[in-house]
């Protein structure tokens, strides 16, 4: 557990960067610090491993004051990932990953062996181990950064906007991968971002910082979206928060309807339904969706929208319907085969129903 006790950081001749911060971060959970630039979220993170020393107040990790340990030793007990991966340019990927074990006195051979394992953990091919950082893409560099942070198996991971410099597709991938890793590793992760979407996706708890280094709200992401503590949080969380909040509502009860399909295999189109004249879903021989075919143009494939799997949130279900050219959201089973479709109107009705249930409970 990490605990801030009225921690203030004041740089000479300026506003406090962090102002009287008190909070405790639960062990084995992901806590996200989010806020606009200059709100002190990165400063707060860097005070945990003493990259920044607080002006007043104390920070303890598992009850031990961080200032009671030499700074370098303290830092080696916490993984650190930053925005620019910050890899050593003159060392190979493997040696970069092995940095902290080597500092801890592990032999070169054992450290490299450990680094090899970590390539698997973060999903990098072993052939990349001998390359140099400049030969990797931004996303791969970030993966190496994460591997380096995990190499000495520290209980705490500090991540300072690690995914903000990569493109949205890779970012999405890295976020999912972090969640997957966290399921196995159960580290105490403190994650800094300026992106509220990222915060609500990753965080077990989210701390919203306001300009001037004040903690504006510290709660579960669902609560921050549903009940912002004040106007600042409400405006920071933004215009789409109603839609984002659906991400925390279960889609149980959404009806999945059968859909007329056209099976396309080896270039031939074969309609399985008599319901010609409407939108038809084009699937391959394994019932995986390929796209839509508009009424009257059976052989012309129109790209489909986002896909929905039962068990996912209402946000996914609604988005599948909204983004589909036919207005019908495609639902898939675990193997990626088409189950049927969901209707936008029905999803909205379900949302209203859930709201009334909540209201009745109050």
């Amino acid at each position: 557990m990490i605990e801030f006790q009225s921690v203030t950081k004041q740089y000479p001749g300026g506003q406090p960067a962090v102002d009287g911060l008190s909070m405790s971060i639960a062990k084995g959970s992901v806590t996200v610090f989010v806020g606009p630039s200059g709100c002190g979220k990165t400063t707060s993170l860097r005070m945990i491993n003493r990259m920044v020393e607080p002006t007043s107040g104390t920070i303890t990790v598992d009850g031990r004051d961080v200032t009671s340990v030499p700074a370098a030793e303290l830092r080696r007990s916490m993984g650190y990932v930053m925005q620019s991966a910050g890899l050593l340019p003159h060392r190979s990927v493997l040696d970069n990953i092995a940095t902290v074990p080597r500092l801890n006195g592990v032999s070169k051979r054992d450290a490299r062996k450990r680094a090899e394992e970590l390539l698997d953990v973060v999903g990098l091919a072993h052939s990349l181990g001998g390359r140099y950082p400049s030969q990797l893409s931004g996303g791969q560099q970030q993966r190496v950064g994460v591997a380096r942070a995990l190499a000495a198996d520290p209980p705490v991971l500090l991540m300072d906007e690690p995914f903000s410099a990569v493109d949205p597709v890779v970012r999405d991938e890295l976020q999912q991968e972090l969640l997957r890793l966290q399921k196995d590793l159960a580290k105490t992760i403190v994650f800094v971002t300026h992106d509220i979407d990222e915060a609500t996706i990753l965080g077990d708890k989210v701390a919203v910082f306001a300009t001037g280094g004040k903690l504006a709200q510290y709660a579960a992401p669902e609560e921050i979206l549903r009940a912002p503590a004040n106007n600042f949080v409400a405006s920071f969380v933004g215009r789409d928060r109603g839609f984002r909040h659906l991400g925390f509502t279960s889609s149980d009860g959404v009806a999945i309807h059968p859909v007329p399909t056209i099976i396309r295999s080896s270039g031939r189109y074969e309609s399985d339904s008599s319901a010609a004249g409407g939108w038809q879903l084009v699937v391959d021989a394994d019932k995986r969706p390929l796209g839509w075919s508009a009424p009257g143009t059976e052989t012309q494939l129109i790209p489909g929208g986002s896909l929905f799997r039962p068990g996912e949130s209402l946000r996914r279900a609604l988005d599948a319907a909204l983004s589909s050219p036919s207005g019908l959201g495609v639902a898939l089973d675990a193997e990626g085969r088409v189950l049927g479709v969901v209707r936008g109107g029905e999803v909205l009705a379900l949302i209203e129903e859930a709201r009334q249930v909540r209201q009745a409970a109050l």
Partner: protein
Amino acid sequence: MSSVFSATFAWLADPLHWSGSMGIPTRLAEHLQYTGLVMLIATAIAVPVGLFVGHTGRGRVAVVALAGALRALPTLGLLILFVLLAGIGLMPPVWALVILTVPPLLAGTYAGISSVDRNVVDAARAVGMTELQVLFRAELPNALTVMFGGFRTGVLQVIATVSVVAYINLGGLGRYLFDGLVLSDFPQMLGGSLLIAALAIAVDLVLSLFQRLFLAPGASKLSDRSQEAAVDLTDPVVAETVVQGGKS
């Protein structure tokens, strides 16, 4: 004029000038010895100080001011001052040259360390390196290319100016300049000048080869950032920092 050139060529081609204790090979070896000695002492002083200043950022203003001030000193004047103070011998002129060589080496070392990507340094510290480890495992390896640029500038400068030690009865290729001057033997002076220039070019070629083989084995080994830094020596701003205090 053409007679001077043909006479110079004749002087250079004369086999008598290529042997004996006053021959060109001996003078060349002496010249290289003085250069090596000066570089050794100057490097031993400049690199540790430059590393300290580059790593801590402390004393940066003092270093720049000192480098500028030393640049203004006249070589020959300094040499004679040292000889008057410490007498004839090898070391007084060597110390004079060391004083003139430290500034470009110091500036090169400092520029090299400060050219290393701050994110790399920050990350090295954040994963738990001590200050010494940050310096020797993160900063120094990535500063070598720029530092070596300062070293090359220093070597060229010493090869050119070490000629003045001949003025106080030491050897080296400078002998041909001063002997030629006294005797009004212009072919000998021009021949000596050509030899010094050729030596400087040859040594620089060897050093650049060394740099290519050992410091940057394939540009791929360096990050984009350090490639920039390597190229940056041609950048007027960096080049000025590197040769600040250097006399050419």
